[in-house]
């Protein structure tokens, strides 16, 4: 092939797997929580150690009681179920009262990760509960997003206001520096998708794209999450504070090197401008 073209071929790099193979790989990767994008991750927060929260999704959805034992150990229990589950978790702070909490449900099959935004100012939560496997592929992440409230200490919760889908970011672009030698550009091209360009690191100049959802947490904090459906099937979650231009987030799934991972990261951001396309989408 002519070398003037440098195709990024994610679907050809992706090995199809059975559900059994995925389950075995998950078991074989006990260090799933150790990623290589930790250089700009803030220190873990111990804000929740010793506290108890119920994350209640709207519409009769899931309600999960969380007892945070210490900075890395929690016990969760689905409302109505006697079963308690102890997990390793990581918590990161991104705004004065907004945190990201992430944990993998140990021994779950399909392996299930939980990435929660905890908004203690409004007592709102957005939970991304993702399991391995979709009807298309056993290695793709199947994502469910729940909006709801945080019940704690008898504090009243908002009746109607919730984190919600947003188009505020459409047309904008941000750069994210994860390490001195790893920078990527995110282009929020449409209300439903994202493109990223590798500015530094393996594959400099290459671009990927994926379906993506964008949520407004408050006037300067946004959450977005994509699934790499053209390739490895992994999930990326970004919780960004546009005032300090910093993010925290998680990556979940099986990467092209055939390792299962669910790890937190942080990156320093910079505004790369915008396109005037926000109002062109009729959907």
């Amino acid at each position: 092939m002519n070398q003037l073209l440098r195709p990024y071929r994610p679907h050809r790099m992706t090995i199809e797997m059975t559900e059994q193979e995925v389950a075995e790989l998950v078991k074989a990767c006990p260090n799933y929580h150790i990623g290589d994008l930790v250089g700009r991750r803030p220190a873990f927060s111990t804000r929740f150690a010793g506290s108890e929260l119920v994350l209640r999704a709207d519409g009769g959805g899931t309600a999960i009681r969380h007892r945070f034992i210490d900075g890395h150990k929690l016990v969760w229990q689905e409302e109505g179920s006697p079963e308690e589950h102890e997990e390793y978790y990581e918590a990161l702070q991104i705004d004065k009262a907004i945190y990201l909490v992430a944990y993998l449900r140990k021994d779950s099959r399909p392996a299930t990760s939980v990435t929660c935004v905890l908004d203690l100012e409004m007592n709102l939560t957005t939970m991304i509960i993702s399991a391995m496997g979709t009807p298309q592929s056993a290695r793709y992440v199947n994502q469910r997003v729940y909006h709801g409230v945080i019940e704690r200490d008898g504090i009243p919760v908002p009746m109607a206001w919730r984190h919600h889908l947003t188009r505020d970011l459409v047309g904008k672009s941000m750069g994210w520096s994860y390490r001195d030698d790893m920078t990527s550009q995110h282009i929020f091209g449409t209300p439903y998708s994202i493109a990223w360009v590798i500015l530094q690191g393996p594959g400099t100049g290459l671009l990927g794209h994926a379906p993506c959802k964008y949520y407004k947490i408050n006037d300067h904090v946004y959450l977005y999450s994509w699934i790499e459906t053209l390739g490895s099937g992994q999930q990326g979650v970004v919780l960004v504070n546009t005032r300090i231009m910093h993010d925290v987030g998680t990556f979940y799934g099986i990467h092209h090197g055939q390792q299962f991972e669910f790890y937190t990261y942080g990156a320093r951001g910079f505004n790369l401008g915008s396109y005037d396309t926000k109002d062109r989408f009729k959907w």
Partner: protein
Amino acid sequence: MAKSIYPEFTAEEIDAIVKESTEYNTGGLAAMRPPFYEGLAGKSLTLRYDNGVTLYYEFEDAHTLRWKNSEAGSSHAEYYEALTADDNVIFFVHTVAGTSPRQARMTVLETDTRLVTTFFAKIGNEISTREVDRDIVFGYIEGGEAPEVRHSLTTELVGRSIVWTYSPSFSIQHIYASKWYSAFVDFNTFYGGMLLSSPCNYVKINDHVYIYSWVETEGAGIQGFALMNLFDMHDVGCFFGINGSGRFECYTFGAIGEYVGQLTNLDIPNDQGIDYPWPPMPIGEGSRE
């Protein structure tokens, strides 16, 4: 490898598809296409390329040309279409009948400078039988001293974006995202506002006319070729390959552009010396970059 929604074909199947697609030059994006340029009719041109190839063209009328590889060689008749993108910039395209896999040439002529750029395209490469491969070759039109400069690959478009309207109900946003890659947003169809991406190349013709050409490597494998005039915000171009419906096509189009902005082009790869350079090309003494 993960499943693809675009089936691979054998070489024989590709040949059969090409043979069956007699209306290959008819596409659905002609509404904004300017009238065909007829000024080549009756002319003869000798195109000398920097890779040593010389092509001799005789344009019999507005849609028939004859070409040959050497002055004394036998000539081949082809159907062609020509369009202009600027006062002195002519684009013409033709397939090469009888080739297997099927080839096509997209040529941009600049009549004032006598510079030429041709995409020598063919269906299939070592990765996929349906994916278009191409060589981009620069050269000049014979007729006096050989020009010292050439059209050239460029990064000048990186970061910019244009929404191209092909018809009142069909618009696409092109995002010239990096030196190697582009993205596009379909505002209209079942993709429902999704964003897709393709590897691409950009060629500078003059200070306001550029070629942007991509290959849909994660899709049907077709090549898009757009010759864009950024003064008029109009483009002309063509699609070539086996489309998503399994039909062979090589048809021209035109579109009206609307500039929608420029992202910051940090040029980190160049600044930090970690860029992937373009591979060596047999280019002339200088370029317009």
